């Protein structure tokens, strides 16, 4: 068997290996990639500004202390969303209570983590939100003997769902924009930790994470 024959044999042995992923799914996932990059850009900018000792001013569309139940949609205005250039200012994130009691969080930029944290807590969701690239060190992973409690995503298996699929559901929120929280499905003693990870500026390594954590005053506020 010469070299060409050997390589041909190797190539042919993989002939039945075929990608099963449809084009539509790839295109949909590319929107997630664009979203991650936009988040990365904002956090990189925030990091640079903070390093210079300049406070980052985030305009609040509505008082963050009002719960979503009494205020259908609210959130801070985006600081650099592309729509801003056309005169339309979209919120960096919005929190809205839906008719079924679920709470929908729509992300556009990783800005005003404290405002989002206060808003979620006011709506009865124990939450820790950080957009600094680091987790709140006071938060501990939620553990339970019930497997469902480990799996926070999906309408039938946990308190969280999104508009599209999650490619690594246990740690990475990869829906393009929306996270839906069912507060009644949160296990007792559990809260949510929402944070961004990766290297700011390195868009492809950046992602928004949502985890179940043990509720505590230091982590989730209660």
């Amino acid at each position, binding site marked *: 068997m010469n070299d060409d024959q050997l390589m041909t*044999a190797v190539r042919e042995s993989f002939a039945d290996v075929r990608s099963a992923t449809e084009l539509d799914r790839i295109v949909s996932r590319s929107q997630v990639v664009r979203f991650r990059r936009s988040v990365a850009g904002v956090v990189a900018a925030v990091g640079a500004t903070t390093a210079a000792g300049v406070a980052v001013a985030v305009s609040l569309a509505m008082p963050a202390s009002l719960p979503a139940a009494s205020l259908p949609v609210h959130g801070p205005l985006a600081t650099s969303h592309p729509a801003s250039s056309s005169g339309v200012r979209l919120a960096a994130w919005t929190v809205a209570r839906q008719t079924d009691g679920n709470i929908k969080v729509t992300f556009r930029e990783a800005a005003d983590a404290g405002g989002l944290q206060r808003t979620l807590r006011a709506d009865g969701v124990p939450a820790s939100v950080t957009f600094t690239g680091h987790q709140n060190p006071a938060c501990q992973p939620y553990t339970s003997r019930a497997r469902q409690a480990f799996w926070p995503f999906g309408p039938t298996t946990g308190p969280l769902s999104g508009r599209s699929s999650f490619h690594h559901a246990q740690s990475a929120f990869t829906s393009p924009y929306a996270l839906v929280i069912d507060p009644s499905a949160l296990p007792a003693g559990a809260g949510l930790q929402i944070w961004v990870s990766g290297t700011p500026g390195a868009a492809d390594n950046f992602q928004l994470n949502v985890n179940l954590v043990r509720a505590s005053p230091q982590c989730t506020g209660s």
Partner: protein
Amino acid sequence: MGSQSLDFAEFYRGARHECLRAVLVSVGDRDMAQELVDEAFARACASWQKVSQHPAPAAWVVRTALNENISRWRRRRREVAVPDPGKFADLPGADGTSGSAVDPRIMAALLGLPARQRQVVALRVFLDLDTERTAEVLGVSPSAVKAHLARAIGALRDDLVHIGKQESQS
């Protein structure tokens, strides 16, 4: 759908299987390879205007998938284990009984190669890249590519001939 999207669609349909095979050779796990390739294609789609100008977009996808594999390993702070080659070698032959699409003996022989040699084989065999392009993708010299490929072929031949002898004796 604009012309740019159509271009990506055409590229995806033409390259997705080859890219999956190339990444599978490198990482050794079918599910992981599929996930990495999907992510890499999604990034290619998101940056198609730039990626389409690349001299070998399929090589860009494979390189991106392999980089993502390394990034995930770093994020998780634990090793992404390459399956034990013996696990594949012990499986039945590629007659449909193993449930694997690849002859487990060939997969075992490939997984027995050092990572760089597997990557060279993947790019040369499945993407049909020449030595210079393979060297560019991997960030090594052309002479290193030739050396890796020669060693890989030698090792594969030894393994597969050894298997052939075992079969003929049994």
